[in-house]
């Protein structure tokens, strides 16, 4: 596990051909690690018949809604959380 709760992380802005579970709306956005989960098989290879190994650490990452959606109409304290695999995260501290 590379990241720890409270740490600022940025979601990689790269595109990815094929199945992956990092929604486009958070790519390039910076948030905070909320929880560190165990590792899970990698859906990007498992989707194509491979075993998904090595397993990838998973994190719950929280973002301010206004950092994700510049025109967000709700309250400034509103947040959005996603489960993101470690290989999509970069240290942002």
């Amino acid at each position, binding site marked *: 596990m590379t990241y720890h709760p409270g740490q600022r992380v940025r979601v990689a802005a790269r595109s990815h051909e094929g199945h992956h*579970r*990092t*929604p486009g*709306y958070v790519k390039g956005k910076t948030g905070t690690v909320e*929880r560190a*989960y*165990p590792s*899970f098989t990698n*859906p990007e290879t498992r989707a194509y018949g491979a075993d998904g190994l090595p397993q990838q650490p*998973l994190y*719950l990452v*929280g973002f301010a*809604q206004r950092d*994700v*959606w510049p025109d*967000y*109409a*709700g*309250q400034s*304290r*509103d*947040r*959005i*959380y*996603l*489960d*993101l*695999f470690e290989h999509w995260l970069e240290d942002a501290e």
Partner: protein
Amino acid sequence: MSEHEHDHPHEPIENGDEPPAAARARALEQILIEKGAISREDVRERIDWLVSRSPADGARLVARAWVDPDFKQRLLADARSAALELGLDPGPSPVVVAVENTEDVHHMVVCTLCSCYPRALLGPPPAWYKSLPYRSRAVSDPRGVLDEFGIELGEDVELRVLDSTADIRYLVMPRRPAGTEGIGEEGLAALITRDSMIGVAQPAAPAPIG
């Protein structure tokens, strides 16, 4: 259709309601069975399991947490273990997370990528949960979505949307309604609706006594 010549009048019978994905799913199932990857029995067992699940299990968890503060702490720390403790099947996901709605914080759950959902504890997800409008707007305009579901959050409430994009399954623990102090665990469970555990509704109000 021209062969159809009995004399009661009706519209042509068509399979018009079947979504296009159904034909693709049937074709995939057939190929997987022919290749020996799965059997018809596997498919049947999974369907039986899924339709045997219901929100009553999730409601039991929440109701116990409402009446037992120690259990609530265990539920929030590890919902999978808490479900097992009550003899419930938490499903195949190794991590199930319960999040608590309070006076100051409201959670709601979505899966923007598909339809990830705590099926073991809530049963099959409702059709709207899988719809594109909910999946896109729950993340970008969640207060607008909640408003349409009948929840108007105060400006001082922090709204937290959980997009379950991977292997974790999320269950919302709604706030216990006022006026339920005298109601036992079973009566409380009856107030805890599916939608309140997705975070798009409040629990039902208790029936007036009298």
